[in-house]
């Protein structure tokens, strides 16, 4: 038990600063959809336009520079985003092909918060640091659950000894709130750690694909519209979400990758790539999509809490606040331990 106590103390202390930062930045990120919509960061096509959407190639042809990727957002109907070498990400009206002005209502605060939360503004080093912090957090939760037994064996569940010194009351709050939210916190910590592996895992997957296609980017190739149509035929039950062309730094040589997903709450998280050969136009759903990327796709919602409507987000935020209290009381208990007089 002494060993668990040491593990709990040091694994928690090592990651507390990170976890406090993650809890504080995570709080607004839970509501980023609502904040983006309210602060006018979504693109809206002009209301006056009517009529059908243009074929994708008509829109792509008007792009400024070579198109690297095309994507759509559920919350932006009738808008196509083109990512080009020259102009970066441009939103276009799907009915007129005209570029829409991206609303830039001040600096992208939420983007900055996300950069801090996901990688400490430090690229790969930030991912690694947060991944390690996540592993330590898992260890801290596990050891905390083990220690719950000896620390509460004389107490009824949830009992706060109000007549006892502050330190005992802090301990009781720490134990109650920690054990009540342990399962949620464990899931968020594990899925958060998995999310830090996103870039390396996708890099591994891309490196595995089509090493023979390097020379294929030359010569005649399918248009984005043809690739999209071919992908739809290859996977009629799935909904296209984005396509990555071979010209993109994250593209696959020789293929247009069309990312598609299903329509149910579960399968809409499970992105599947349809590979369209740029020369033959032949499309094929990648049936051997690796399990680790499916795990990554499932880890995202379970970390963000964005899959059960606004009430789930509010619950997520409250659990986040409880976690802050657990961290704060834990720190208080450690500071108390540093003093000569020991209690509890």
């Amino acid at each position, binding site marked *: 038990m002494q060993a668990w106590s040491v593990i709990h103390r040091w694994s928690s202390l090592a990651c507390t600063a990170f976890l406090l930062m993650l809890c504080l930045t995570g709080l607004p990120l839970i509501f980023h959809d609502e904040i983006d919509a309210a602060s006018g960061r979504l693109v809206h096509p002009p209301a006056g336009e009517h009529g059908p959407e243009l074929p994708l190639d008509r829109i792509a042809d008007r792009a400024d520079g070579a198109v690297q990727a095309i994507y759509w957002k559920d919350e932006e109907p009738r808008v196509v985003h083109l990512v080009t070498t020259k102009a970066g990400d441009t939103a276009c009206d799907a009915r007129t092909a005209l570029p829409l002005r991206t609303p830039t209502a001040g600096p992208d605060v939420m983007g900055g918060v996300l950069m801090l939360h996901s990688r400490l503004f430090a690229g790969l080093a930030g991912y690694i640091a947060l991944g390690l912090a996540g592993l330590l957090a898992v260890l801290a939760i596990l050891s905390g*659950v083990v220690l*719950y*037994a000896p620390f*509460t*064996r*004389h*107490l*009824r*569940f*949830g*009992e*706060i000894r*109000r*007549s*006892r010194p502050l330190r*005992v009351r802090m301990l009781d*709050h720490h134990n*109650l*709130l920690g*054990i*009540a*939210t*342990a*399962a*949620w916190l464990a*899931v968020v910590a594990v899925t958060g750690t998995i999310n830090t592996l996103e870039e390396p895992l996708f890099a591994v997957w891309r490196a595995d694909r089509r090493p023979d296609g390097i020379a294929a980017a030359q010569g005649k190739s399918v248009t984005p519209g043809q690739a999209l149509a071919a992908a739809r035929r290859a996977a009629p039950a799935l909904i296209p979400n984005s396509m990555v062309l071979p010209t993109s730094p994250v593209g696959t040589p020789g293929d247009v990758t069309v990312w598609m997903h299903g329509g*149910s*709450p*579960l399968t809409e*998280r499970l992105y599947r790539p349809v590979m369209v050969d740029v020369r033959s136009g032949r499309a094929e759903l990648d049936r051997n999509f690796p399990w680790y990327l499916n795990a990554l796709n*499932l880890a995202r*919602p*379970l970390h963000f809490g964005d*899959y*059960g*409507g606004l*009430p*789930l987000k509010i*619950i997520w935020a*409250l*659990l986040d606040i*409880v976690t802050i209290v657990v961290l704060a009381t834990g720190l208080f208990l450690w500071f108390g331990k540093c003093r000569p007089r020991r*209690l*509890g």
Partner: protein
Amino acid sequence: MKARHVSAREQWGWPVALAGLTLFGLLSALLGEGGLWWALSWTALATPLLVSARHVMRPSQPMTRIDDNAL
């Protein structure tokens, strides 16, 4: 004074139930098709919060003391 231990069932009943509800709540919103499953998810995930709040805000009326000098 020798302290009486609470039984394992008394000690772990609530934590295990809350963890079970949490996992059910997390999965029911993900696997269920909205509607009832979402409502069940909200209820299940709100339970640990409500139970915690009830204990934290309980007025300082002393509960039956099992042991006052254990620590």
